[in-house]
């Protein structure tokens, strides 16, 4: 199969959806309300690009996501490593962690709002938590499942604990960590927008949507949804490429 055709196969379904959307929007007035015509969405895009609203809100959401993601990854890896390498820590923290993990992210929002208000701190905290869970779980799995035969090589070469960590355990756990980051990324993005819907202060794609709803601007809501989907997809794609490079030593045959 020619490479171009192979790559563009993923576009087939979205194009069909757009076609169906446009068809429905042309049926009657109700259809045109629910399924905003593409031309109206295009106009809204130009309008929002023109007055900078789209960019401001998009950047606000992205900044929130990356801050929360970075914090979630750092704390998540730290706790995951601690639980994997210290059985005392695992027994001490494990039960608490696994019970707290059961509370859905949306369930935290009222509590966090009451504690910390509805400002930037609360939103970043929610995103951090969302990224934190998958990071802890995958880090723990990765470090727990380092093969004994590799640990033995470290022992035979008389590596110190720190050397064993850097040269054996960490690289062996890296594929699992990459999976963790991939999950954390998806959760972070989704909860960033979610937190903006619930804590409606400041800028963000979620806020853009809420304002559009208040002003009955369906085309802006649709545009925001598209934007959220596209950005999430691009971020995942970017990270997949990065991890493929970092894990190029793996035998993918």
């Amino acid at each position, binding site marked *: 199969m020619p490479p171009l055709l192979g790559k563009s196969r993923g576009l087939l379904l979205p194009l069909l959806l757009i076609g169906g959307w446009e068809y429905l929007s042309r049926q009657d007035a109700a259809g045109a309300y629910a399924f905003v015509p593409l031309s109206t969405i295009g106009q809204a895009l130009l309008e929002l690009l023109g007055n900078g609203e789209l960019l401001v809100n998009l950047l606000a959401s992205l900044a929130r996501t990356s801050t929360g993601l970075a914090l979630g990854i750092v704390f998540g890896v730290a706790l995951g490593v601690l639980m994997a390498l210290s059985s005392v820590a695992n027994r001490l923290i494990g039960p608490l962690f696994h019970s707290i993990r059961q509370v859905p992210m949306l369930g935290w929002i009222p509590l966090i709002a009451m504690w910390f208000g509805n400002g930037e701190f609360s939103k970043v905290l929610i995103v951090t938590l969302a990224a934190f869970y998958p990071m802890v779980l995958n880090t723990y799995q990765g470090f727990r499942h380092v093969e004994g*035969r*590799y640990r*033995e*090589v470290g*022992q*035979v*070469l*008389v*590596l*110190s604990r720190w*050397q064993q960590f850097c*040269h*054996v355990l960490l*690289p*062996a756990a*890296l594929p699992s960590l990459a999976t963790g980051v991939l999950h954390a990324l998806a959760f972070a993005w989704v909860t960033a927008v979610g937190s903006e819907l619930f804590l409606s202060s400041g800028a963000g794609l979620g806020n853009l949507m809420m304002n559009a709803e208040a002003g009955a601007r369906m085309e802006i809501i649709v545009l925001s949804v598209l934007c959220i989907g596209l950005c999430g997809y691009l971020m995942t794609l970017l990270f997949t490429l990065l991890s493929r490079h970092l894990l*190029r*030593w*793996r*035998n993918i*045959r």
Partner: protein
Amino acid sequence: MNAIAHHALPHSTTLPCGALEVRGLSKAYRIEGQPLPVLDNINLKVRPGEFISIVGASGCGKSTLLRLIVGLEGDYQGDILLDGKPVVGTSLERGIVFQDHRLFPWMTLSKNIALALKNHPLSQVEKDRLVAEHIALVNLEGFENAYPHQLSGGMAQRAAIARALINRPKVLLLDEPLGALDALTRVRLQHELQRIWVQQRCTVIMVTHDIEEALYLGDRVIVMDAHPGRIKHQIQVNLPHPRDRSSPVLQGYKEQLLEELVGH
């Protein structure tokens, strides 16, 4: 020989040789609370620079013996002495090559070999020179930057041998090092092993399933019996190295060994 070896000779000519002595060594595992003896009263004296082959049925504890000597297992009765001193834990004085090469898949070949020098007080230039030298020793020039999955089984095993040799161990332990290779690669690597050993002359203990391999390489072949593992018989192979694989003397030893192993 020992005295010479301990002095600073150019690295690749001679390795420091170690005299290994195993006295009254017994080891048992606990399976569901019941002790299961794996080694029973093993006595073995290995001269510095001697090549010992150990053959025996599976379950005779030959691998356990190597793991005890290298220090990956403890909790045994008896003594394991290297140059008169009891062995404690793992040490760079004792190197091992496993049946699976155990190169780290996330490191290139040269990084894998260089990792063995991590705790050496040498300069980086010296380390680089040693790594290059050992890659040349096992004929892997040109593959320095290859990842293990890009190497064939034989090449990976040669890299593992280089990694074990680079620390100039007094004793080199080979745990069925060629066991996972195809017949042709195996013969070729036996030849390589002999060449390397003739060049380096360190003490070697090799565990193998292959009688011909044991006789071709060993100065002495130890036959072990299973349940519990113990030394049953020893054969002194009086033939200078390098040896000819098809020598009639080796044939004679082979029949003697087969008789011993199959047992009548």
